[in-house]
């Protein structure tokens, strides 16, 4: 009798252990989590700015019996066409200069005031603008884009061709040009 009851005892213990084992396994698989780290990045760019460093000045000239033009290239060199004759003296001939500052190596767009005329005692004189970023004097059109240097600066050189009518009335003529820059 004793031996048989011992056998019952041990099988009861096995049953209890087995319930515990199943319960523990089910619990360990019920909820888990996995994580991953990600990088976040942003680049704050210094504001772009532009400032006038020189005015565009065509100097003095004589109108002729025929119309013509007086031209200033980006290297401050003046030439005339048609009936216009260049005069010495008066204000120095200069191309306009705009200094652009901003983030190093940033590229940007340039836009200009259009339809600029110079007003004075006589008929308005129309200005056709040209520009470059070097001042080399070979500009034939307006530079539309620029790229700031490693120091975050660049200069826009702006010249133009001024249309002078035949017998244009004498006097001082002036107008406003502008350049606007924006980052790409």
């Amino acid at each position, binding site marked *: 009798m*004793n*031996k*048989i009851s*011992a*056998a019952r*005892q*041990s*099988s009861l*213990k*096995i049953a209890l*252990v*087995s319930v515990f*084992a*199943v319960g523990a*396994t*089910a619990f360990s*698989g*019920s*909820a*888990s*989590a*996995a*994580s*991953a*780290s*990600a*990088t*976040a*990045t*942003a*680049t*704050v*760019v*210094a*504001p*772009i700015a532009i400032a006038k460093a020189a005015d565009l000045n065509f100097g003095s000239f004589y109108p002729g019996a025929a119309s013509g033009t007086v031209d200033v290239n980006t290297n401050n060199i003046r030439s005339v066409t048609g009936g216009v004759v260049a005069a010495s003296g008066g204000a120095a001939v200069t191309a306009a200069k705009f200094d652009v500052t901003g*983030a190093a190596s*940033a*590229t940007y767009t340039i836009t200009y005031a259009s339809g600029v005329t110079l007003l004075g005692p006589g008929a308005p004189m129309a200005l056709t603008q040209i520009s470059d970023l070097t001042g080399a004097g070979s500009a034939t059109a307006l530079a539309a884009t620029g790229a700031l240097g490693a120091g975050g600066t660049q200069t826009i050189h702006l010249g133009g061709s001024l249309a002078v009518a035949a017998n244009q009335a004498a006097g001082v003529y002036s107008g406003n040009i502008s350049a606007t820059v924006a*980052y*790409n």
Partner: protein
Amino acid sequence: MMPVIKLRRGSGPILALLLLPLLFLPAAPLHAVKTGNVTNTRALSYGRFVANTGGTIILNTAGARSQTGGVVLLASGTFTSAAFSLTESGTGKAVGFTTITLPVSATMTSGANTMTISNFVSDPTNTVLGTGKNSVQVGATLTVAPNQAPGNYSGNFVVTVNYQ
């Protein structure tokens, strides 16, 4: 004679211990779940912008960028939402991803300067994903201070996915 009759009193617990490893063996394949894994596959990138008077930049989960306040967004540079892939490994039952836990905020630094990211959003949203979903896109809002110092900012954030 039956073998059980040969058991002596006190041998029951020893037998139970001997059988214990055997009990775990059949239980494991029946109840184990594969391991769920989350892998970051794309960074959260706000691209390039000018701070001006400050404001916020919102990146949605699709990676579209918008701004508030004086911030000027620049088209140059790349901007993306973050992406994570969900996978499972090992043997057992298929993983059922349940909820996504997003950070409340994260900080990006550039030298001594900082910016804070908050209002994290995810697609799918942080509700039940369901089995079969294998990627999560995460966006968030960046707060930019007035005249925020120029520089390249970076930081880290953690996304946790729960599964069963």
